[in-house]
C-alpha cells in the first residue's frame, strides 16, 4: 500500500497494547466492531491469548479497511495505542514516520517515537471518574477524536453495546471525557503551531 497516494488511508492497521486486564482486547474489539457494524467497513481483530492476557504485555491487532482484508496480522501499524511501557517497548520498533502513537502518559513515561505522538492521562482520568477500569474507554474516546479511524457515533454506540448493563452512563461519560481531551489536544496543537500558545496576543 502506497502512503503517498491519498490522505485517508484505505486500510488502517492498528495495534492496541497494554497490561492484561486493562481491557486492551475489549478496546480492540470495540474499535473493530465500530468500524464494521457502525461505519460499514471491513475489519478484523486478532488478539493475544495465553499468559499475556492475564497480566503480561497484552495486545490486540485491528485492521479497518474499505476492501476485503486478506491477512489479519499487523506488520506495520498505522496507529499504535500503548497503555503500558512494556507494550510500547515491544511494538515501538514497528513505528514509521507516518504512524500515529497514542499513549497513556502516566503509564508510558519513556518514548522516542519517529512519528506524531499524542498523550492522555487516561488511567488518572478514569480514577477521577471513580473507576480505574474505564481507562480503556477513555482511550477509545481519545483514539476516535485524534485518528478519526472510526466515527464518533459508531464508537459511542459500540461502547454502549459492549459494556455491562447498568454502566452505560458512566462509560458514555468516560468516552466523552477521552474524546473531549482528544479534541482539545488537536486544538492545542493547532494553536501552538499558529503561535497562539497563551490567551494574550503577543
Amino acid at each position, binding site marked *: 500500500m502506497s502512503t503517498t497516494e491519498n490522505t485517508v488511508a484505505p486500510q488502517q492497521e492498528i495495534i492496541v497494547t497494554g497490561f492484561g486486564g486493562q481491557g486492551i482486547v475489549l478496546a480492540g474489539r470495540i474499535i473493530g466492531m465500530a468500524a464494521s457494524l457502525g461505519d460499514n467497513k471491513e475489519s478484523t481483530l486478532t488478539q493475544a491469548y495465553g499468559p499475556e492476557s492475564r497480566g503480561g504485555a497484552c495486545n490486540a491487532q485491528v485492521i479497518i479497511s474499505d476492501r476485503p482484508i486478506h491477512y489479519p496480522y499487523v506488520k506495520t501499524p498505522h496507529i499504535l495505542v500503548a497503555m503500558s511501557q512494556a507494550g510500547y517497548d515491544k511494538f515501538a520498533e514497528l513505528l514509521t514516520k507516518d504512524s500515529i502513537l497514542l499513549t497513556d502518559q502516566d503509564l508510558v513515561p519513556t518514548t522516542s517515537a519517529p512519528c506524531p505522538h499524542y498523550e492522555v492521562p487516561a488511567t488518572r482520568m478514569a480514577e477521577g471518574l471513580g473507576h480505574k477500569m474505564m481507562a480503556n474507554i477513555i482511550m477509545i474516546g481519545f483514539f476516535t477524536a485524534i485518528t478519526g479511524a472510526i466515527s464518533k457515533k459508531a464508537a459511542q454506540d459500540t461502547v454502549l453495546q459492549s459494556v455491562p448493563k447498568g454502566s452505560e452512563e458512566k462509560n458514555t461519560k468516560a468516552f466523552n471525557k477521552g474524546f473531549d481531551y482528544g479534541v*482539545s*489536544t488537536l*486544538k*492545542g496543537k493547532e494553536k*501552538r503551531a499558529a503561535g497562539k*500558545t*497563551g*490567551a494574550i*496576543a503577543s
Partner: protein
Amino acid sequence: MMQPNKSATTMNRPNKIILFLCNWGPHAAFLSLQDEKRDIPEEVLMVRVPCTGRVDRSLLLKAFAMGADGVALVGCSPGTCRYGSGTLIASRNTQDTSKILDLMGIGQERLRFATFLPEQADDLLDFLHVFLNDIKKMGPTTITTSPTGPAPSDQRALPREDVAALIAKYDIHACQDCGKCSSACPLALVGKPFSARGIASAVINNDLYKSDVEENVWSCLTCGLCYERCPSAVNFPDFIKELRHLYRKNTIQGEEAHGGFLHSLMRSMASRDMTPNRWRNLPEDLQIDQESPVLFYGGCAPYFDIFFGKHLDVHTEKILFDGIRLLNFFDVHPRLLGDERCCGHDLLWSGEQKHFGQVARLNVERLNSLGITTMITTCPECYMTFKTTYPSQGLQLNFEVVHLYDFLEQEIDRGAVQFSALDQVITFQDSCRLCRLESRAELPRQLLNRLQPTRFSEMRESGNAAMCCGNTAWTGCDAFSKAMQVKRLQQARETGADLLITSCPKCQIHLRCAMQDPFRGDELQMEMLDLTSVIVKTIQWK
C-alpha cells in the same frame, strides 16, 4: 447621542438647562445681564454657588438624572479663582462626568464648562444662547424621571400592615435572640454599634423609625454571613433588602456613598429611551462576532474606572477584556451589546425596587429579543441578578446565564490546557454574592487550584466565612467600612501572600481604597488582580 424613536413623554417637554454659576466672577456678569434686562433664555435655571470647584461629579450627574437637558458649569477664568484651585477642579469634574454621559449615551455635549470675567457679560450671554441652541437641536435627554411620592405626615407611621407582612414573610419571630449573627457580623466585629438581631427586635417592637435602627438598616452589608450562621435561618440579606424598600416607599432616604453618583447613574438606566454607548474602546486583539449565540455581558466596570480613576488606580474594565480574551482562547467569539444597561443590582439592594423593576424589564425585553442561547458574565453581581433575582421576580430569560468561571472550568476540564508557573504566593478574596448568596464558594477555588503559584494560602476567614470587602450597594460607607477593609487586608498580608486575587470589581475598588491610607504607609499595600486576569496571564495550550 440622539435617539431616533423617542416616546411622547420625553419629546414634548420644554428644555431645561441648569446653570451652576460661580458667586465671584461670572455671577457679576450675569447680574449685569439681569440689570440691563437682556434676553437671558427662560430655559436657563441659574443656581448660584460659592465655587464651581465644589460642584462635584455627583451633583452634575444628579442634575441630568433629575431631568436637566443641559448643564453648564460656569466659573472664574484661570488664575482668577478666589480659592486657587476651583477652576481646575471644576474642569476635571466636567471631563469625568462628560465621559460617563458619553458611555450612557446621553451625549457629552450636554455638559459644558466655561469661564468668564465679571466684565464679559456679552460673552456669557452668547455662550448661553449657543448652548441652548445646541441643546434644542439635540432635543430632550432620554432620561425619564419618576416623581417621588408625597412625604408621609408622620414618618414614624410606617404602615403597620407592611411591617407585619415583612415579619411574616421572613419569619422574624423565629429569631431566638441568640446573638450568633452579631458574633459573626464583620461590622459588629470591628466595633460598630450594629446588631442584626437588634434590627429584628426593632421590627417586632415597631421601633423602625428610631435613628440608630435606621442607620443600621442602611449600613448592613447584606453580605449574608449572619444568614449563614443563623440557627433559625432568617434570611437577613433579603429581609434588609425589603426593609430598605419599605423605608424608601416612606421617603426615608439611605446614605448613598460617593454623593449618590452611582445611584443617579443607575436610576437613569431605568429610562426606556436611553441608549448607552458601550464597548467603543475594545482592544484590537479581541475577536467579536455580533451574530454569535453567546453574549458577553460586561456590567458597570467602565463607569467605575472613570469615576474612581480620580483617586484610585483602578482598571476594572480590563477584567472584562480579559474575560473576552479567555473566551477567544477557547474559540468563542462572543457578541457584545452596545446599548448594554446595568443589571440593577445596586438599585434593588438599596431599596429602589421601582427603578430596579424598570431596569430589569428593559433588560429582559432587550436580551430576550436577541435570540442568544447563553449569556456569559464575569461579574458576580450581574451573575446573581440575572440568574436568580430576575426569575424570582417573575422575569424569565430565554437563554442560559453562565458565570465565566463555570465556562472556564468546563473547558479546562476537557484537558490539554496547562498553566504556566506563577512566581507568587497567592490568597483569595471571596465575593459575597458568589460564595454565599449563590453558594458557589467552590467555583473560584476549582480554578485557583489549577493555577501554579508558589503557594496558595487561604485567609483566616474564607469561603462561606469570608469577610466582605466593606460595602455592597454603595450605601452607608463609613469609618467602620474602612476598618473592615484594613482588617481584611491585614488578614491577606498575614498569609504571606504577595498577590491578592479577587473575583468582583467592587472588592478591587474597596480594598484598593483602603490600601491608600496615608497613615499606614505601605503596610497594607499588595498587588491585587482579578482571577480572570490571573488566568489570562498564565493559561496555555499543552
